[in-house]
């Protein structure tokens, strides 16, 4: 007989030992956070340093390359007078409303595209094509259809954002492992339960990626529309600010406008979409954001 106590080692303690040995270990996050903050700051400092250097050598006239400090003064001036809040409010609230309408249109559209083959065959290529068409191309048409008003602007924003969001949802649904809906079926999920408990949550990462891109597109389209379609009736947003800067040939104001547009776009992505995406991916053990 071999040693009986070894043979009789209780199954549950072997199982518990295996569990302890095989369980994946989670990685630390402090260093990652440090890297996420420090690296971009260093990059930004470098860009400003190069800019300052080029300006100080005076290779180009001032109206082409302004001093970093002049641009900074432009920004602090409009912050000081409080004008900046009006620009931001006009543009950001339009972008957010445009984005929300796009969301409401694109989500059912994406579900239809993903689940109804006929719909996909009929308008799938059209939606993908629209995605690569710069939405600024719609500005003249929108102005002729609706005149210089908010309707024209929202049309341009929607045509920019809806295809991205719909395509994101389609991609998210296409990438669901087929075993999951099968499991849903054997667990007793009907059509509606399958959509609610399995398809939508499973498609969430792709959908979020689509939302992120949809936001970028709606912000871009809005700026294009504001820049081209300027009228007192439209209020004074960041696009109009940039347009005025061009009219005044004030390069430091132009750069200030570009920077503001850039920071709003990046800011919303960093404050809203990045944390959302990170939370979703991390909870599923995906991505190294």
């Amino acid at each position, binding site marked *: 007989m071999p040693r009986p106590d070894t043979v009789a080692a209780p199954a549950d303690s*072997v199982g518990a030992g295996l569990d302890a040995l*095989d369980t994946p270990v989670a990685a630390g996050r402090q260093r990652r956070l440090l890297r996420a903050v420090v690296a971009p700051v260093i990059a930004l400092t470098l860009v400003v340093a190069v800019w300052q250097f080029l300006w100080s050598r005076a290779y180009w006239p001032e109206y082409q390359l302004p001093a970093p400090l002049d641009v900074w003064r432009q920004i602090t001036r409009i912050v000081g007078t409080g004008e900046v809040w009006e620009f931001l409010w006009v543009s950001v609230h339009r972008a957010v409303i445009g984005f929300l309408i796009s969301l409401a249109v694109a989500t059912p559209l994406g579900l239809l595209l993903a689940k109804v083959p006929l719909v996909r065959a009929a308008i799938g290529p059209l939606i993908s094509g629209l995605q690569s068409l710069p939405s600024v191309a719609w500005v003249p048409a929108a102005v002729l259809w609706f005149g210089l008003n908010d309707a024209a602007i929202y049309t341009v924003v929607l045509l920019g954002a809806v295809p991205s969001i719909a395509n994101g949802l389609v991609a998210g649904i296409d990438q669901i*492992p087929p*075993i999951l809906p099968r499991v849903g079926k054997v667990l007793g999920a009907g059509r509606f339960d399958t959509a609610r408990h399995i398809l939508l949550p499973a498609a969430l990462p792709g959908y979020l990626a689509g939302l992120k891109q949809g936001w970028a597109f709606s912000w871009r389209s809005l700026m294009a529309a504001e820049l081209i379609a300027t009228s007192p009736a439209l209020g004074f947003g960041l696009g109009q600010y940039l347009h005025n800067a061009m009219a005044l040939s004030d390069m430091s104001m132009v750069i200030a406008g570009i920077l503001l547009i850039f920071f709003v776009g990046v800011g919303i992505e960093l404050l809203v979409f990045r944390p959302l995406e990170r939370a*979703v991916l991390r909870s599923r053990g995906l991505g190294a954001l």
Partner: protein
Amino acid sequence: MTATLAATSAATETDAVVRMSGVRKVFGHGPRAVTALDGIDLAVAPGEFVCLLGASGCGKTTVLNMIAGLDRPSSGDIELTTTRPAVMFQEAALMPWLTAARNVELPLRLAGVKRTERRARTLELLDLVRLGGAGDKRPHELSGGMRQRVALARALASALQGNNGEASSLLLMDEPFSALDAITRDVLQGELLRVWEATGTAVVFVTHDVREAVRLGQRVVLLSSKPGRVVQQWSVADAPEAELTEEINGRLREVISSHAAA
């Protein structure tokens, strides 16, 4: 075949959890049609543990899918007297966005069970598969063996749902341990037997591993390949394990080599 086996078959005449009679399955049509299963007769008694054994292409998985309602037979009948049969696949197929406990809870949610009852049942089932402390973990934080145990708990939640002692339950398992390493597989086989004894559910277990079939099953059913037919059945209680394994292995080899000749 032996007297014991005949006795079991007689019992299943009256109350089988699932009875397949003359089940045929053809994939595709016309000249390129493939007959996957041809005249399968199989009855499983309440609480019985049956292993379906066969080489690849014998339609083991097709049998399981048809019992589960994922696929329909081309002809023949499948009668179920159980609650909805639960299925466990080769991969755990847990929902990656739900914790282990939420995964186990999912079939109960789909069945509209009340929240407090759901939670209590889930805790019981997690304890049953010895994962009482891991309910809050996400699938990616668990090892392969632990994930498969969560899947077992989820399958049990689904199988035992709505079963207050009247209807018997049925668990269908499609090579659930074949993707695991040998040590984990060995432990999980033991766990499965323990859970089966504790719950009294009937099990149809598909495998291509003769030793696994003999260790787990009360009855081993050997299927031939292309088309799948029942070749022979053994009652495991009849013979010592090693001998029976040898015998079934021999028969399986015969079945496989018949394909080389054809």
